[in-house]
């Protein structure tokens, strides 16, 4: 059963990634990104990282993709034609990415990860929450601060562009 789910999710991710790679239509790519991200969220669930999966869906699929789609709609003149962009450097890109993939594959094959024992606790959310407010408190606060700064900055930048 788990194997079937694995295969299903991998097919989803592969489909999404191949649409992003092959398509020249930005809107399709954004939807395919959503598909990929939901697939990755499924992977997180299979990896026992439930909270991360939910965060992934909420923030990535529900937030980032929407932002991107909005970006597409705001930066393209909408005249009924499809939002198609051209692409260049195809061969160089293909070669570099294949080389990177092969490099990773080599690394994965040659490394011995040992007999990793899965040790995720059952009450993950509680553990993560406690960790956020004790061990990682500074990082947590900093990230909150960065988020605030980014929000204000993005709002300011967007306002600057709409002033003209």
């Amino acid at each position, binding site marked *: 059963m788990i194997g079937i789910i694995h295969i299903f999710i991998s097919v989803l991710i592969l489909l999404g990634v191949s649409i992003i790679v092959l398509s020249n239509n930005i*809107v*399709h790519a954004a*939807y395919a990104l*959503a598909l990929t991200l*939901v697939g990755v969220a499924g992977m997180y669930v299979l990896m026992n990282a*439930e*909270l991360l999966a*939910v*965060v992934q*869906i*909420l923030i990535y*699929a*529900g*937030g980032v*993709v*929407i932002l991107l*789609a*909005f970006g597409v*709609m705001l930066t393209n003149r*909408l005249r*009924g034609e*499809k939002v198609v962009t051209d692409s260049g450097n195809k061969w160089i890109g293909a070669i570099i990415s294949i080389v990177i993939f092969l490099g990773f594959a080599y690394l994965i094959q040659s490394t011995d990860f040992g007999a990793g024992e899965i040790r995720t606790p059952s*009450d*993950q*959310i509680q553990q993560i929450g406690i960790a956020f407010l004790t061990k990682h408190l500074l990082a947590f606060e900093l990230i909150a601060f960065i988020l605030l700064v980014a929000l204000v900055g993005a709002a300011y930048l967007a306002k600057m562009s709409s002033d003209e």
Partner: protein
Amino acid sequence: MISFLFYLAFLLLFVIAAVYAERKTAAFIQSRLGPMEAGPKGVLQTIADLLKMLQKEDISATAVDKFPFLIAPVIVFSAVFAGYSVLPVNAGLSGSTIESGLFLLLAIVSLDVLGILMAGWASNNKYSLYGAMRSVAQIVSYEIPLGLSVLSVVIITGTLDLQKISFLQQGNGLPDWNIVQHPLLIFSFVIFFISGLAESNRTPFDLPESESELIGGYHTEYSGFRWGIFMLSEYGMMLLLSILGAILFFGGWNSPLPNIGGLKLYELTSGMVLGTFWLLAKALVLIFVQMWLRWTLPRLRVDQLMSLSWKYLTPISLLMLFICAVWKWWLMS
């Protein structure tokens, strides 16, 4: 799994009944009779409409972006319906038992924005696109007060599992409901309800599909069965948020009748079937309030909509979150 199937069956029945109820409510509030012809008092009207709708041609215009256009309604519906996976039905039948149930519900329901945007964009129609943009802006904005008001319940109950939240309100009927036990939650509930209305694109927040200006908004170009799926998911969203509200604030599947002395009313009215009945009854009352609101209040303007979310609901819900945290701290100490 069983709860999921139960809700699927219930949702389909509910939509048929709710469309009729909605039309009747509208009619009564406007001193009309409403549908009267099909069947006694018009009860078969929705079924007749449904049959007509299913027979319609599946039209897609030439300039649409074919594939997204075709799957957008499916995405909207599956996003909304996935939210049902974590809802419990009664004391014995819980939904998915994952730890982050409530969080998952909010997250997965927010995915329907994607389907709406897809529908609006793929229709290649300015009204659809306007509707989709408005809908997305609205849903993304109102997710914040919705999430924050739900969070104040989470703070007080200390769990994200909806079944556990229901069990926490078990025992003695009405006095054990969250909203009675913790009267602060009334404000949270109001915020939850308002943002829920906005999430499900209901009047007074139905700007995305305002018939008078946008001729249906993002589902302008849809007809027949695909349009029906949009309708189904709108009603599904209403029901989902009503059930969620009933679980979070009004005791879930617990009977409202308290034990008075030797009269064990609560025990008498609890049980599997009655528990299901109570949960759905509470949800249906909330649905009625939604319909009642729909035929009372006029549609908001876009700027009013945004200012309501960002200037009023979000700060108040943040404040409520803080107050609930203090309340919880006071309860614990």
